[in-house]
């Protein structure tokens, strides 16, 4: 009998909800990604999609075991699930290289499980955000 497990919103199978951010800068071998929640992530430049550049909006998704075969080769980086004991409640994180990226919903992944984080460019969101910033800049500095 298959147990009917309730999945967190926006998740699919072993995947976790997506995180969004922008490639803030390209620095040496790294792309510095400024996530919308204020976190920073240094992503290896050779793991970026070929057309990636500073200012592009990206979506990060985390995929559990079995998923790597279905993901494109470019734009992926393997990490390990961690649980951070917080003051209020435990928090989910993914260790990528020497960095710890907080993830906001635990989903169905277990601590120490290997995950593949996939970075995808979002040209449409990039255009929208650019327009929003251009409007602000014109108002302020016009």
């Amino acid at each position, binding site marked *: 009998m298959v147990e009917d497990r309730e999945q967190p919103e926006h998740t699919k199978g072993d995947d976790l909800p997506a995180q969004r*951010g922008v490639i803030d*800068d390209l620095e*040496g071998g790294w792309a510095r990604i*400024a996530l919308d929640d204020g976190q920073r992530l240094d992503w290896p430049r050779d793991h970026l999609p070929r057309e990636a550049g500073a200012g592009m909006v990206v979506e990060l998704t985390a995929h559990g075991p079995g998923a790597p075969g279905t993901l494109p080769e470019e734009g992926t980086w393997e990490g390990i699930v961690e649980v951070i004991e917080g003051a209020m409640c435990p928090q989910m994180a993914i260790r990528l290289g020497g960095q710890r990226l907080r993830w906001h919903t635990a989903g169905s992944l277990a601590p120490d499980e290997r995950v593949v984080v996939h970075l995808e460019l979002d040209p449409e969101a990039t255009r929208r955000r650019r327009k929003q*910033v251009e409007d602000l*800049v014109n108002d302020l500095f016009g």
Partner: protein
Amino acid sequence: MSISHNWWTKTFCCLVLVLGGLLAGCAVDWSWLTPSPELSSPLPDRAMRIAALDIGQGDAILIISPNGKTMLVDGGNSSRDARDVILPYLTENGFDRLDVLVLTHPDADHVGGLPEVLRDIPVGIGVATGQVHTTQIYTEFLQELQRARDEGGTQIVRGAAGVEIPFDPDVQLEVLGPSVDAIAGDDMNNASIVLRLTYGEISVLLTGDAETEEEAWVMAQGSPLDAQILKVSHHGSNTASSVAFLERVRPEVALISCSADNQYGHPHQEILDRLSDYGADVYRTDQDGTIEVITDGTTYWVQTER
């Protein structure tokens, strides 16, 4: 003539920390950063202070002018930097407003704490290049700047070469870069606001993340660039601080703002060697903590947190 009192400062601060720890049950108090009466006794009343605040891998430079005007150049990485470092430093020095706030360029490690600063205290003049960049934190900065203008009367100035920014009548403040063309482009580091402050005989050059391209442009404009105090560009990256630029600046003190063991290898060894070749004393926030340079317009003193 320039005198570095760093050794005395460190010795004095160690004594203060030990005595303070004994008296206060080892509590650590940031207020030691404010020079004690003993330390400041040789200083004149009208000193200018430049503080490279220790906010990790990023920039936050605070200037307190001889007439008590305040200018913050960049705001570190995050609202936490604003709450834990920038705003407490201002408060401990008796200030509850900024006369001038400058964002050199939109990178997250420079803009991170500025929305919080704008929310928390009044700002007289807000200066930025107005480049277009799509990060959430930069958008938030622009929105807070807009709110400060509409609700608090903050004056907005587009920071480009030649623009005049009222600050302190005793301090000459020059905006040496960027060019208008650079602002229109997508390269943010090379569109950094470059500032030169001169008080008496002492000059300070603040370069944001300007790389060799912008350095060359600034040099080509012909303005004097010599400065005893240099905030080294781009956290000591080898994409900046060209030989030709350092030849023009001739710094005696080089301030590098970076975190320990950052992914980028900042500061790069070749830049440390180059600064050393020019005889500059290098101070680094990752090793020294917050660094303060205090000048009376004739001499200067450097004191460090660690």
